[in-house]
């Protein structure tokens, strides 16, 4: 019996079956491989992925209302906001009490700021209430509060408080796609077209990014072809022309485009010198979409050239020669033989450029004027200026979603394993 088994199962030198031994070796190999990746994975997770997720949560966070107005939120639940009547005395009493406590902790204006995002006027309403509530010592609170500011006597005021009293809110996301929740009905309405911002900005960001990607392709293709087909000795020198701008500070390149493109800048002066335009015909090439497109095309060009170049380098010149010697016209040989081989590089470059372009911020801010700014500019504005961190995060999450979609596409077409940086 034993010998029979030994005949069918191959054993290694120490007597374990080969299959088991192989599996064990493979498992060990997997563990070793994984433990080599683990440190970086842990690092990236803690230092990068957690912060990004954290921001995602911020965009839906609304705990501030319940934290600062705990009693009011509780008693407001029993109020029917569609009844057409003001809440009862008990709600007013709770509000006065909550504001008193918030005032002591200097938090009453925070809640005003939060609700002001949903309905203008709450900022001053709560600031004023903070000044007045200390005088309201005894019931009826309802009358006293309305006397301090007649806005407390409006049903809409209370509808807004109730509508946005949940732990979580979709308010920031709605705002990020130009929608608004009607406080009285709870319905979601789209903003009138004249007031819509973000959808237009997203669309513009995508359109300009596509244009920039296309331009970098058109400009980058010949140069990549040249670099890939000339002797390495020369191409190694010429590639410095690509790498030097790649490694020069973004701010500096943007500044230099300002000097070049402005009305009294180098290019306009040159065009006048050669007589192409007159002194009155100076072109407006900056502080508009043109400025953004030109400067960004220049800045992103290396990201297109390097992947295309590295793919083209691997195409043997004999392919073209064979096609031509078999009678194909050089154009036809190029189009039917060479070009299809470069598609992987074009795909890599295009999606890389597109993904980077779509998230651009500094260059559009400096040269974009009003028609050349991107969605990232608004995100930065909400984070560092308006302090509406919820809306900034919501916009960020949507942008991230778009970019990830393109990244998946990239992986499908090119495969991330094939990403090369020259």
């Amino acid at each position, binding site marked *: 019996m034993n010998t029979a088994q030994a005949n069918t199962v191959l054993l290694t030198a120490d007597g374990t079956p080969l299959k088991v031994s192989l599996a064990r070796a493979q498992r060990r190999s997997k563990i070793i491989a994984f433990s080599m990746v683990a440190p970086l994975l842990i690092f990236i997770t803690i230092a990068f992925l957690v912060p990004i997720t954290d921001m995602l949560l911020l965009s839906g966070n609304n705990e501030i209302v319940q934290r600062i107005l705990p009693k009011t939120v509780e008693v407001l639940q029993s109020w029917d906001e569609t009844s057409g009547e003001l809440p009862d005395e008990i709600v007013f009493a709770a509000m006065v009490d909550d504001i008193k406590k918030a005032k002591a902790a200097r938090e009453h204006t925070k809640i005003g700021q939060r609700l002001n995002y949903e309905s203008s006027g709450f900022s001053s309403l709560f600031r004023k209430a903070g000044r007045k509530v200390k005088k309201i010592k005894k019931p009826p609170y309802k009358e006293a509060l309305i006397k301090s500011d007649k806005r407390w006597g409006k049903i809409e005021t209370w509808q807004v408080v109730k509508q946005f009293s949940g732990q979580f809110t979709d308010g920031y996301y709605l705002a990020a796609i130009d929608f608004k929740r009607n406080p009285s009905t709870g319905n979601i309405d789209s903003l009138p077209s004249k007031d819509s911002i973000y959808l237009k900005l997203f669309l513009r960001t995508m359109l300009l990014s596509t244009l920039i990607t296309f331009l970098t392709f058109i400009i980058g293709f010949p140069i990549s072809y040249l670099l890939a087909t000339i002797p390495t000795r020369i191409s190694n020198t010429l590639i410095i022309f690509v790498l030097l701008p790649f490694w020069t500070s973004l701010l500096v*390149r943007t500044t230099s485009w300002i000097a070049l493109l402005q009305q009294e800048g180098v290019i306009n002066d040159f065009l006048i010198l050669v007589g192409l335009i007159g002194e009155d015909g100076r072109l407006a090439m900056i502080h508009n979409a043109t400025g953004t497109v030109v400067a960004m095309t220049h800045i992103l060009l290396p990201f297109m050239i390097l992947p295309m170049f590295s793919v083209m380098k691997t195409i043997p010149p004999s392919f073209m020669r064979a096609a031509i010697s078999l009678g194909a016209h050089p154009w036809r040989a190029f189009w039917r033989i060479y070009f299809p081989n470069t598609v992987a590089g074009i795909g890599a470059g295009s999606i890389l450029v597109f993904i980077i372009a779509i998230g651009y911020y500094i260059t559009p801010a400096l040269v974009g004027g009003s028609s050349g700014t991107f969605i990232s500019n608004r995100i930065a504005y909400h984070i560092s200026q308006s302090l509406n961190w919820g809306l900034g995060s919501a916009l960020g999450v949507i942008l991230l979603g778009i970019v990830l979609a393109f990244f998946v596409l990239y992986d499908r077409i090119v495969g991330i394993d094939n990403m090369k940086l020259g």
Partner: protein
Amino acid sequence: MSSLPSYLSLPERIWHYVFLGICAAILFFLIFPLLVIAPLSFNAVPFFTFTKEMLAFDPAGFSLKWYEEFFTSLNWQGAVRNSIIIAFFATIISTSLGTLAALGLSRPHMPYRTLLMSLLISPMIVPLIISAAGMFFFYSRIGLQGTHLGVILAHAVLGTPFVVITVTATLTGFDNNLIRASQSLGATPTTTFFKVIVPLITPGVISGALFAFVTSFDEVVVVLFVGSYKQRTIPWQMFSGIREQISPTILSAATLLILITIALLTTLELLRRRTERIRGVTPS
């Protein structure tokens, strides 16, 4: 390239020269904006325009004062120092972790390779403003905002994808038989690592490290959010104070940076030639 094959027809020859002309124009487009920086950094007035005096080569139109400011101001000195410290440590972290991970990823039998790779290079894919915002919120909560460590970690994160990609690229097509051969000849894993693997991946590691270094050295969005005055880097310094004054000092800083970049690129190119010589690959 200089001598065209004799079988080409006239239109093909013309096309060939037109093509070279187009390429020359593109190379010009790439490099010209950098050439504009240098003369403007000698401007006597604090604006980014070529003044009449400059165009007439009148010495009154030129000045070294922006360089003087760059070399004497405490803000700029601190910026240079911080840039070097932050880029240096960020590069060390991203290069060591990135190289190790790339080696792991390139081993046979690596599970979930694509998923892991996607996660590891995600800092390159996520738009900078989102990375900056996310790290700003989170780092401020755990007390890393406005610290050198915070900026170093943030920059290390941004640099790792470059290292992972370049090192992985040098390992694609790596013949695992080389390792087996080395081991069967009696080498310990450590010896194998240093004698076989290290020489092979060195070019990838160096170029990845340079990418990581330059990423940190040039990065402005994340440092504006995660950093503070004490972590001011050169780009931070270029960008701050922009409300009050856009000073041509940033152009003198830029000119010096371009010179450093050229020096780095030359080093890299010489290094690459050296590796090729060692490997016995002669440039054609």
